């Protein structure tokens, strides 16, 4: 893994505007940044990122099974009890997943470490699957990148194949998002083009416009019945909205399926550590209420005492607290020995239960800390998108960086 300074493509901003990539700059700051790019070897991609990511997704599936079978865990993940059956049933039926993004800390030396799994509503998909690809093709055509270079990015093709796998030919899929948010909309549009390419009907509806029909079905903004609904809207919110009581009766098929609620929840992380202690791609993690006192010299909860003792030194070198529900770094606090805690300014999620995770310090490349987003489509890792930030907590103003494979 290296960071390479590269010439920018002449006129890329105009092209971004022409393509509708309207958020290449956000709040006056660059978001898409091609003044440099990250470079990996093929074996690094395949052995350190792709294979471990595919394995991590399988581990998350195993954790989903465990959580859905244990009321005590469902409670700790704050899943409303009235919806346990909806989640468990969707798992029992084997409802297929579409996509997700694992966020990994990787420094080019040690193993990639799972920070969290955005398994329900990951964004930055257009940047990863499309715009980054265009950057690569154009830079290669211009001779900036060598003819034998490549990019870990079969996201679009994998999405097309997955849609064809999980839907009937010609199935009509509604895509719901907040249309006033260009990032969210770009993500559903990227998914919708792939669905169209797979021969499906793709129809957009604004999330807030979804209605309930007199038959108890859901309908789109034009009052057309929704059969299959892709929603860029988190399950933890769906389950608490006023339409939550109609989720089952409507007969709607949801993508992501309801069981994803338990793997897109950071309560997944302590469960993974419990099931796969010491796994090289996992960081020690606990529910905060089990270890809060132990972190300040007291005793851990009895059922995690041995695991906590084994991880004590690692946690003492630095740890992070995160709310079980949060997006884009909100509510995250860094605790490092001899330094005051570092909080993310946005604490809008902090009223939720917390987890504690050992700190994986992000590597420093010229003052920037990259986080790897490895994309899972279906059950396989198929691509990579990097974001970097000057702050050690990646948030929604971090920069997206292209990558390529060389050697």
């Amino acid at each position, binding site marked *: 893994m290296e960071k390479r300074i590269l010439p920018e493509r002449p006129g890329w901003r105009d092209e971004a505007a022409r393509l509708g990539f309207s958020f290449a700059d956000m709040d006056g700051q660059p978001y898409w940044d091609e003044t440099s790019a990250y470079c990996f070897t093929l074996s690094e991609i395949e052995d350190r990122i792709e294979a471990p990511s595919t394995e991590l997704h399988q581990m998350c599936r195993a954790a989903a099974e465990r959580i859905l079978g244990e009321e005590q865990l469902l409670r700790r993940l704050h899943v409303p009890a009235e919806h346990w059956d909806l989640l468990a049933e969707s798992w029992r039926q084997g409802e297929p997943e579409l996509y997700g993004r694992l966020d990994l800390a990787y420094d080019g030396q040690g193993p990639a470490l799972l920070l969290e799994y955005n398994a329900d509503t*990951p964004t930055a998909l257009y940047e990863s699957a499309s715009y980054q690809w265009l950057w690569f093709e154009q830079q290669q055509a211009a001779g900036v990148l060598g003819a034998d270079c490549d990019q870990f990015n*079969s996201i679009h093709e994998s999405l097309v194949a997955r849609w064809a796998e999980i839907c009937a030919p010609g199935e009509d899929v509604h895509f719901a998002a907040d249309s006033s*948010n260009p990032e969210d909309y770009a993500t559903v549009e*990227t998914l*919708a083009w792939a669905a169209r390419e797979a021969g499906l009907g793709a129809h957009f509806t604004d999330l807030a416009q979804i*209605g*309930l029909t007199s038959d108890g079905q859901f309908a789109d903004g034009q009052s*057309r019945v929704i059969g299959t609904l892709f929603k860029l809207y988190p399950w933890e919110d769906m389950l*608490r909205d006023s339409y939550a009581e109609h989720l089952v009766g409507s007969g709607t098929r949801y993508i992501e399926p309801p069981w994803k609620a338990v793997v897109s929840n950071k309560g997944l992380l302590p469960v993974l550590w419990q099931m796969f202690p010491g796994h090289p791609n996992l960081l020690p993690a606990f529910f905060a209420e089990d270890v809060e006192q132990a972190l300040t010299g007291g005793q851990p909860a009895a059922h995690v005492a041995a695991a906590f003792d084994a991880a004590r030194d690692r946690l003492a070198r630095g740890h992070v607290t995160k709310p079980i529900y949060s997006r884009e770094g909100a509510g995250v606090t860094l605790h490092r020995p001899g330094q005051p805690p570092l909080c993310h300014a946005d604490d809008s999620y902090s009223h939720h239960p917390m987890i504690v995770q050992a700190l994986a310090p992000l590597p420093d490349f010229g003052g920037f800390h990259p986080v790897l987003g490895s994309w899972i489509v279906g059950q396989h890792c198929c691509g990579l998108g990097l974001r970097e930030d000057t702050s050690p907590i990646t948030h*929604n103003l971090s920069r997206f960086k292209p990558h390529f494979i060389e050697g």
Partner: protein
Amino acid sequence: MTTTRHRKRSRHVALVLAGTATLALAACEDERVDARSFPDLESCIAASKDNSLWFTEQDCRQNFAAAQQEHLETAPRYESKELCEQQHGVGNCGSDPAAQQGGGGFSFMPLLVGYMMGSMLSRGGGIFSQPMVRTADGRFATPKGDQSFATNNGAGKVASSTFNRAPATIGKPPMTAAQVQSRGGFGASATSRNPGRSLGG
């Protein structure tokens, strides 16, 4: 340990973010798109010199390579040359380069006789391609066989075909106009309320 490098990136992607209105509208039309077919790469490159067209030499090269690959991956395989020729005409079949040496089995396939490129707004922009093979009645078809054409060297509009099958739901089939009694029951929830923030992450 790899002998041939396996390509790690897509052959094409959807590039255009059209915005809500376009996505909603495009779904309702049986769209027809500009298409060009060529017997080989050279004739595509020759045509691309005319700058008024929607494709460049680079597009020719990229899409020809993609069509070649797609032909290898998707062309129908037959047990014998005779069977293949029944479907694709005499002289239009060859052996499968991907078949195991001397393995027998399904090792004959129609020859690649050209490719077709389409300018696809309905797929988020960009150019898509399909390989072309002969049919028994002397026409040219894509390997799926669902579209056939009189020539492998022409221009025209091609339908991006869609099939509509309604999955069963408890009430009316999807896309049926229905009586809506309320709206806005999704989106108000409160695991976090931070206006203007992405609902994803």
